[in-house]
């Protein structure tokens, strides 16, 4: 799409419900070398929705300051992650009848088809944030590069992500306040997939589920391309909440018990285990039935995965109307990759396997720094990977804020 070289310095920021993480990397031979990393507790976000912009802005500023100080370099532009229910995805299609007398597709046909797909206006009050290319179809057959191939009907499809205008401006404004430009938005689930799924996974078909604190984002790849993506407004915080409600304990205690004794599977044997909150059996220590903990967590965890499963099917049925969609290993040979902070819950993969009927594994980001090779960092590491691998849209010299925005979002 563009020949503009990547900048040698890439900064990314992943604003989650629980934590905000930022990574600054130097790009050498198409690979990122980490210069600095920072993460802080997010303030002002509940269930993936911004509730206190002032606090969130301050948090973002602190994180960016951290990476600037840590590296001694100034950040000029940054990639922002986009997650949760605010970013809604849909499939848009454009096609042309191949006109040439010899029936061979030309580059102009492709660009015409792309233009016709992008001509579709987003719903009222929403702005298109990004387009992600899906397989090109020539006479209903998926093809790689169609130029020069013979056919009658050329169809291009995109996964288009839109966002409510005010929400988008708020996010851009937050970063612009530091005199930093938003270079691009990257879909958080796509980022997580870039960090944890191999090209072979994406080629065969893989479902990546990124369960964070506030939301669970998922994305399905088929033949290297995004087929569809979605988000469920339930995450790790709900696990903690359920436990705090059931055991009548504080959020902090619930979080602690979840990590130490929690599981996504409830087993008969758990009921016979008594666990202690502090372990010293002293004053203020409390004992709990481990079965209660695993029962509460497994119900919530499996329900959330079930919501994801239904959402995937619903979206696939919208794409292939009239077909009864069934998720199975034939369709998704690489199964499920589970990532995000909540993938750390014990037996998470086993629970996903049970609910979806697909093979499942916990995905750890593939990165040179060992400290970031944890599921909770798949998002921020993936942003870096995605920024490098995805052809970035051309950004010309800015001519004022509005013109700059247009450049960014019209591609």
């Amino acid at each position, binding site marked *: 799409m563009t020949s503009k070289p990547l900048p040698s310095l890439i900064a990314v920021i992943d604003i989650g419900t629980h934590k905000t993480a930022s990574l600054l990397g130097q790009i050498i031979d198409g690979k990122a070398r980490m210069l600095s990393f920072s993460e802080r507790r997010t303030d002002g976000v509940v269930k993936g929705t911004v*509730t206190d912009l002032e606090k969130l802005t301050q948090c973002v500023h602190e994180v960016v300051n951290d990476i600037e100080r840590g590296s001694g370099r100034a950040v000029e532009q940054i990639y922002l992650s986009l997650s949760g229910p605010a970013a809604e995805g849909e499939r848009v299609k454009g096609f042309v009848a191949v006109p040439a007398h010899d029936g061979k597709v030309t580059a102009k046909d492709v660009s015409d088809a792309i233009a016709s797909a992008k001509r579709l206006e987003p719903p009222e009050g929403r702005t298109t944030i990004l387009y992600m290319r899906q397989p090109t179809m020539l006479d209903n057959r998926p093809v790689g590069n169609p130029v020069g191939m013979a056919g009658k009907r050329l169809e291009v499809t995109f996964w288009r992500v839109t966002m409510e205008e005010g929400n988008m401006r708020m996010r851009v404004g937050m970063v612009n306040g530091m005199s930093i430009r938003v270079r691009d938005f990257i879909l958080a689930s796509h980022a997580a997939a870039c960090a944890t799924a191999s090209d072979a996974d994406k080629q065969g078909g893989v479902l990546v589920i990124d369960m964070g604190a506030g939301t669970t984002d998922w994305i399905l790849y088929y033949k290297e391309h995004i087929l569809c993506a979605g988000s469920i407004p339930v995450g790790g915080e709900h696990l903690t909440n359920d436990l705090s409600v059931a055991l009548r304990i504080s959020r902090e205690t619930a979080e602690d018990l979840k990590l130490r004794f929690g599981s996504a599977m409830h087993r008969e044997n*758990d009921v016979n285990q008594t666990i202690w909150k502090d372990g010293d059996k002293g004053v203020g220590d409390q004992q709990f*039935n481990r079965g209660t903990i695993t029962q509460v967590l497994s119900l919530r965890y499996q329900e959330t995965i079930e919501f994801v499963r239904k959402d995937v099917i619903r979206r696939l049925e919208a794409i292939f109307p009239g077909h009864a969609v069934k998720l199975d290993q034939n369709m998704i040979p690489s199964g499920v990759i589970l990532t995000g902070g909540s993938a750390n819950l014990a037996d998470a993969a086993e629970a996903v396997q049970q609910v979806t009927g697909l093979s499942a594994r916990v995905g750890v980001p593939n990165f040179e720094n060992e400290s970031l090779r944890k599921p909770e960092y798949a998002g921020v590491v993936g942003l870096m990977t995605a920024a490098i691998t995805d052809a970035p849209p051309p950004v010309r010299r800015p001519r004022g804020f509005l013109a700059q925005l247009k450049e960014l979002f019209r591609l």
Partner: protein
Amino acid sequence: MSAPASILLVGLGGAGCSMVTRLAAQLPAEVGVALLDTDARSLPAGGGVTLQLGRAQTRGMGTGGEAALGQASAESEEAALRRLFTGVPLVVLVTGLGGGTGSGAATVVAGLAAETGATVLSFATMPFSHEGERRMRQANDATVKLAQKCHGLVVVHNDLLLQQVSPDAPLSESFAAADNWVGGALRGLAGAFAPGALIAVDPAALRSILSTPGSPTLFAFGVGQGEGAAMKAARAACDCPLAHAPGAVAKVASLFVYVAGGSAMTTTEAFEAVGAVRTRFGGETSTILCARIEPSLGDRIEVSVLGASLPAPKAVAKPKKGAKAVDPSQPIFEFATEESMRRGLFGGTPMTFIEGQDVDVPAYIRKAVRLPASP
């Protein structure tokens, strides 16, 4: 009715009427019963006072889930309702929120009862999660309004009820659990005011506990039997799910504790039970104690706890830019509504619906799974 009863039990709406009808049989004679509904079919002929609301508005057909219609129906019967409540010191209103009559009329009925000088204690059931968004919202709105009109409001969650019984139990059993709680409370209150109690109280004392409309109300009920029955009952009351929903009041300043037992109950036992209840619920400012011997209970002991705390005034926060203007008629404390009770840490955030269920409510509550007992 010859003389006004000391306690008037009022069933309002379909759910309220059916619960009161089920309870009426096991109540002592001091409790008068009145049934109010818009749907003529749920008002049986004979058996207590009945009043059909909104004859002009609904023509005896019910409200079809419209709260506004329920409210108008109750308002149209204002005179009759005032007559009903005149001279009654304590009105206990039982209603199911979510539908039209309960959600709409409860506020009006409670308001009128309070205006005639009665102490009003309401028991309101909340719809099951599976009843969907609209009814849940309607019920939520109604609890907030109702809390302002009553001296005490106890919210009973239908979802919680389901957890009290085994998964394969018939539906009637879970409703029986609700009857048990509310019935226990009523027996407690009736027993306390009836002549012949070992330690008696009068309705004015109860009034002193439930003095401020809208203040969070605590209610718990427990039964124990056999060896150490009093402590068993006290522990059961401490574990009563009604008192344990998160966001419910943990400790209150004033408590009303009622202990009833068979003729074998000893003073030591009764005071042990009260001690255990006080350790759990507070009652530092005042604890009104009431005990009674009920030979029919045999070796069973029942403990009912009712309490309210005068809310600590919240520090007046500096108004934030763009913050919603505070309605001066609203009290400055937050009432423990259905929201905060079931949604825990998510109380106060907008509800998130998937497949018609508020997913911020714990999964085990919505799926009505009974949790393993604590050690």
